[in-house]
């Protein structure tokens, strides 16, 4: 509420009010929605956990000196046999604390998702800008490839790539990048086509600036807002896809267990009623994906110039 009154006050008394920069307006628009504010807070918590997992975890789940098989498959809330550690979310088949395993898993899932998202964004952005700026045959060829790729489901492309390339962290990232770049390329091309016809590009062309300078210094910054939205939503998608691949046994290796792998490891215990080994990593994955999606949705609403607010 106070944000909107600020808003009105700012426009009414423009001479006295503090300068309203686009960024400030963006921030106040973003936090108008309670759901989005909550999601933003939650996302910060998740990122914090992922960044500082080694510091805040009750134990290092991959330190063989700490993990004890005697503590295997304890229910949530039980104590370890030596009594120095409470397993808040239970323990898995090897006696690891699930809470710590989830913290570490979150770190791996998030970093793979974000890294593949950034690489895909850079590739998609360059290719999409080229298509829009040069037009003609370049555009046709690039967009045909994009259309062709988008007509196949992401999971299928990823599976085939893993089948050809083999397993491993780098292979998973390659697969995720290949799946995602087309979305970025299509989005950036769409907005670049509109921007390209505007006067400032014409002015830059008249100044005989190089293509590279026009594209990256003038065109690109004006195409960024939709890219941020696609970037958030695609990162959620990438995290989900990586979890699926890991669950199928085709993603990350056992030495780098993401949330998907933790869920897969708990599968065998589930049939005997030990739900917590799969259940809690799943909840962590779900909360991560939902919060990123909610933040992305709000970003889309705020950054969309067609929805005058």
């Amino acid at each position, binding site marked *: 509420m106070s944000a909107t009154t600020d808003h009105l006050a700012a426009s009414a008394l423009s001479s006295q009010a503090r300068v309203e920069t686009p960024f400030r307006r963006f921030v106040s628009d973003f936090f108008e929605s309670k759901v989005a504010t909550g999601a933003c807070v939650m996302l910060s918590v998740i990122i914090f956990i992922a960044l500082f997992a080694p510091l805040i975890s009750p134990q290092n789940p991959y330190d063989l000196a700490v993990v004890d098989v005697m503590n295997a498959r304890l229910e949530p809330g039980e104590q370890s046999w030596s009594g120095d550690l409470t397993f808040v979310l239970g323990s898995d088949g090897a006696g690891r604390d699930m809470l710590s395993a989830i913290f570490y898993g979150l770190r791996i899932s998030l970093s793979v998702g974000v890294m593949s998202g950034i690489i895909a964004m850079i590739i998609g952005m360059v290719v999409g800008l080229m298509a829009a700026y040069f037009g003609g045959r370049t555009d046709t060829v690039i967009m045909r490839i994009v259309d*062709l790729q988008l*007509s*196949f*489901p992401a*999971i*299928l492309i990823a*599976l*085939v790539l*893993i*089948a*050809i*390339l083999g397993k491993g962290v780098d292979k998973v990232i390659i697969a995720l990048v290949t799946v995602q770049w087309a979305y970025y390329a299509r989005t950036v091309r769409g907005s670049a086509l509109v921007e390209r016809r505007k006067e400032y590009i014409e002015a830059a062309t008249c100044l005989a600036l190089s293509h590279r300078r026009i594209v990256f210094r003038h065109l690109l910054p004006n195409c960024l807002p939709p890219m941020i939205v696609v970037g958030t939503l695609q990162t*959620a998608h990438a995290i*989900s896809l990586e*979890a*699926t691949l890991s*669950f*199928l*046994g*085709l993603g990350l290796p056992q030495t780098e267990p993401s949330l*998907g792998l933790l*869920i897969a490891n708990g*599968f065998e215990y*589930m*049939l005997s*009623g030990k*739900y917590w080994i*799969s*259940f809690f990593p*799943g909840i962590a*994955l*779900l909360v991560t*994906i*939902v919060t990123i*999606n909610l933040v992305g949705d709000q970003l889309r609403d705020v950054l969309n110039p067609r929805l005058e607010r």
Partner: protein
Amino acid sequence: MSVFIIRRLLQALVVIFLMSLIVFAGINIVGDPVDLLISPEADQAEIEATIRRLGLDRPWHEQYGYFLLNAFKGDLGNSFIFAEPALKLILQRMPATLELAFAAMLIAVVFGIPLGMYAGLKPDSTTSKTIMAGSILGFSLPTFWVGLMLIMVFAVMLGWLPSTGRGDTTELLGIQVSFLTWDGIQHLILPAFNLALFKMSLVIRLARAGTKEVALQDYIKFARAKGLSSRRVVLVHVAKNIMIPVVTVLGLELGGVIAFAVVTETVFAWPGMGKLLIDSIQLLDRPVVVAYLLITVFMFILINLVVDILYSILDPRVRLKDVKA
């Protein structure tokens, strides 16, 4: 109309040709075809015989010719594990996957359309908000985890439904199907619902958006003004007019459902071609992977072609635009 269909057919042929080139390049550049297509356990004589049969000793353009020829003849190599033609293995498992995919589509439509229409007619009610929140969840929930939870609740805790396999099958037109026996249906419910969840969310959103738009149209106002019961207005006038986008999107999504069946089949040990793919990737049974790839590509192009043609029948504007362009 026929001009449109011929153009689309030609485009599909070009895509099939391109995809075969990409698959061929993938096999030859990324991997070594001798490694990919011949079992590591084969002896020297066997290796040489297979190399000659598949034409792997020729220059690459001739090899591509052989590859196409063999693909047309249906010879995509033999599985290392089953020692049977890869194509046969996949075709044997295809009915199970298709049965699962169609069951999932049916569930998505039967539940999705009424829920979406309700949410569109009463957008501010609590029930509608719950439905929409549910659909956001449906988009975000990873399929495989939902599958696990379904097994945990309905198979392990409540013991109502079986968790794995296909159950009793009966023969229908020479194909083994599950949905005609009670045991088969019980086995089908969980995996089909699991696979349907994502599409159901999509259908709910489409139906809601369509209903909101249609409900404001003049012909709906007129139908109400004419004194038709609101049941008739909703079930006949609104329902009919939201169908076009729902049907098209569902057609396009059929391919996605078949691809995502890979995950559901693995969770529920459903003996379809998706599970075969995962097993083959893990056992490095490459001929099966290559054959799966070619078959799915072919299937996708076919589905897209059929949807394009159906769409042009439902909505003449598409066809006119394409012929003019």
